């Protein structure tokens, strides 16, 4: 990218000229620059998001009528399997952890790069070939058992696709673990000396919690997938009741990863929201310590709630009680964050620009997803709505209403940092309005359908559900179209947007104290901290108090 910058550099000798910018070719190399890798993650993720989104639109088109008229039921099965797998493992996890954490962590803590730059590049370059491999399975008899891939169903349908699916997840899991090691080490070891843990921006706390989950829970999924692949390929019977195996063991191992995966997908955006709200409300964050520690508490509790996905799998009552209580307790640290953000906004000088609108959209939709989560934690209610559209509504309120809104919040907020240019705010607001309306009209009625008993993961449904399903399908088209203004706006403004300067939001965190886009090693001189990350409000003039050594 070629944004103009007016950093005075000595140009007496050609060799001394500092190269500030990357050319487009750099983004196709095995670059170890965390900012290049962050953008590689995001663009790759977004391409997969579009593919996953098109699959979602095909699913919704199929569901416009009660019969299986667009595709046959087995194709439908593989479509929702692919949709879930792509959206989780190739979009939200890479975009949240890979893109945002890679780009922002070193900038926020005043480091020149991640702790292990080459490992970082390896972690990224695992993803594109794996994604292509997973896509290819679509033409080789794809997996049909959903992104959860429960045996024995997963052992019976689409063997080749299932094998590829397992292989892909093992590779993506490896990438995620390597990323987690990098984030964890970077946050703990690479901060500038003047920054204590309690002076880190809250995004770093969120990523610390996330990286712990990546390191601790992802390997257990690998264990489950290794056993599943033996069942599939070598004919063992770990999870196959026909040979004396126990499918519930797979479910335990799978959810030991996949519930924390929900937090891997949303904690980074709790961090993003904690960064965005104080800046655009010009107020110090309310309850820094509470928000920081609540990330760690969510991370810990997230590891001991997994069996709430298995209330109908023959889990004994005492165990269900335990998991019901731990799941409900998670609402406490989450609530602490929500109230922290609301209290930050209270009485603040709120600027209603695109990042702030998306942040407020995030809070409103995520709260709905959180509340339905507490409802689903209650055993009797869960048994009633298990495997219905209520669950589909809940998970999309968390993963779209949470994670995707969080991604857009972050994109609008850090766009000037990454490109050095403003993204058009009017089109950003149009994007927000379309997304917010499209999202809510798509997923809100699914709660009703679920309560009425419409089962998920089936191409056909009873005719009385058709009315709401048609509304949902049309709304989902609005949601798909809402991506177009964003894409056009982002690509256009990356090259032709109004120059933004280094710190258009007058933000205090270190990521804003360098040039935009940041030069290759982030800082000309490593900064020294003279202000907290959120000391807004009292004297706006003091904002550039960071002095160079």
């Amino acid at each position: 990218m070629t944004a103009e910058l007016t950093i005075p550099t000595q140009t007496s000798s050609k060799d001394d000229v500092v190269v500030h910018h990357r050319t487009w070719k750099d983004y196709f190399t095995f670059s170890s620059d965390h900012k290049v890798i962050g953008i590689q993650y995001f663009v790759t993720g977004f391409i997969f998001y579009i593919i996953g989104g098109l699959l979602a639109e095909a699913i919704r088109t199929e569901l416009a009528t009660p019969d299986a008229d667009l595709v046959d039921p087995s194709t439908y099965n593989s479509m929702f399997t692919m949709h879930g797998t792509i959206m989780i493992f190739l979009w939200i996890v890479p975009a949240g952890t890979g893109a945002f954490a890679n780009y922002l962590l070193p900038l926020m803590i005043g480091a020149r790069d991640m702790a292990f730059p080459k490992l970082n590049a390896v972690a990224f370059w695992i993803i594109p070939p794996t994604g292509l491999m997973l896509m290819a399975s679509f033409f080789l008899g794809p997996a049909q058992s959903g992104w959860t891939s429960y045996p024995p169903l997963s052992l019976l349908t689409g063997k080749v696709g299932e094998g590829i699916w397992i292989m892909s997840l093992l590779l993506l899991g490896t990438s995620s673990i390597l990323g987690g090691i990098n984030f964890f080490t970077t946050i703990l070891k690479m901060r500038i000396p003047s920054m204590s843990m309690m002076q880190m921006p809250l995004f770093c706390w969120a990523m610390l919690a996330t990286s712990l989950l990546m390191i601790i829970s992802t390997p257990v999924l690998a264990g489950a997938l290794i056993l599943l692949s033996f069942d599939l390929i070598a004919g063992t019977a770990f999870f196959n009741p026909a040979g004396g195996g126990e499918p519930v063991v797979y479910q335990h191992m799978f959810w030991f990863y996949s519930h924390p995966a929900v937090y891997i997908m949303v904690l980074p955006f709790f961090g993003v929201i904690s960064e965005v709200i104080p800046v655009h409300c010009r107020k110090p964050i309310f309850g820094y310590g509470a928000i920081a520690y609540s990330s760690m508490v969510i991370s810990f509790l997230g590891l001991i709630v997994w069996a709430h996905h298995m209330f109908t799998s023959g889990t004994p009552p005492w165990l269900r009680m335990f998991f019901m209580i731990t799941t409900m307790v998670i609402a406490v640290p989450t609530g602490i964050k929500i109230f922290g953000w609301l209290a930050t906004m209270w009485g603040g000088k709120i600027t209603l620009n695109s990042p702030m609108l998306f942040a407020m959209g995030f809070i409103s939709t995520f709260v709905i997803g959180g509340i339905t989560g507490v409802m689903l934690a209650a055993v009797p209610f869960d048994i009633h709505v298990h495997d219905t559209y209520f669950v589909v509504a809940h998970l999309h309120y968390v993963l779209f209403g949470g994670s995707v809104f969080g991604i857009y919040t972050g994109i609008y907020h850090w766009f000037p940092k990454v490109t050095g240019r403003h993204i058009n705010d009017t089109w950003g607001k149009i994007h927000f309005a379309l997304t917010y309306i499209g999202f809510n009209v798509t997923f809100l009625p699914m709660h009703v359908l679920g309560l009425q008993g419409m089962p998920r993961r089936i191409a056909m449904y009873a005719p009385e559900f058709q009315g709401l399903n048609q509304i949902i399908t049309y709304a989902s088209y609005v949601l798909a179209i809402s991506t177009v203004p964003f894409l056009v706006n982002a690509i256009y403004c990356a090259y032709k947007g109004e120059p933004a300067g280094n710190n258009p939001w007058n933000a205090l965190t270190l990521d804003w104290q360098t040039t935009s886009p940041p030069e290759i090693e982030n800082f000309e001189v490593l900064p020294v901290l003279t202000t907290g990350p959120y000391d807004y409000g009292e004297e706006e003039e003091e904002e550039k108090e960071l002095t160079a050594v």
Partner: protein
Amino acid sequence: MQGSISDKTQINIETDTHGSHHEAHPDFRIFGLIVFLVAEGMIFLGLFIAYLAFRSMAPEWPPAGTPKLELMLPGINTVILLSSSLVIHQADTAIKKNDVKGLQLWFGLTALMGIIFLGGQLYEYSHLEFGLRTNLFASTFYVLTGFHGLHVTVGVLLILSVLWRSMKPEHYGTQNHFGVEAAEIYWHFVDVIWVLLFILLYLL
């Protein structure tokens, strides 16, 4: 901030396309390795707990008709692997005194012990009276020991590559022996996993 930039032309940012890093920071590779081994440990922990779950749900364990496991050979193997941890530590002590010959001797010995262990395990596999698919116990036995054996193989390869590198003069020294330390830590890890595995599969 802007003003201070003009007087710092001394920084030599390498301008190759891959953006090398000109400022060295302290070495976090050992820390990173330990975090990685925590993740590795979680795979094994997951598999161990799965094993215990299968065991607790089975009416009889090992299932009726499973031939008894011989203890003699794996016992000797255990002794070999455990003592190799002491041997590899001698290499660490040696290189800290800049004794490359000592490093090569002890690493060579450790690699040999690792290979003997793997050979012993293959011998055991070929003489067992049950196969991978015989029953749930047999499957878990092979997958757990096989997955551990894979780690021993990786460990042996790590040790051999350190040996190979130590042939280059001055490659390892008192100050510069990350490879030696990393291979040693990994080897201890593989050892600890084996002890747990041995207790779970053979003794319990």
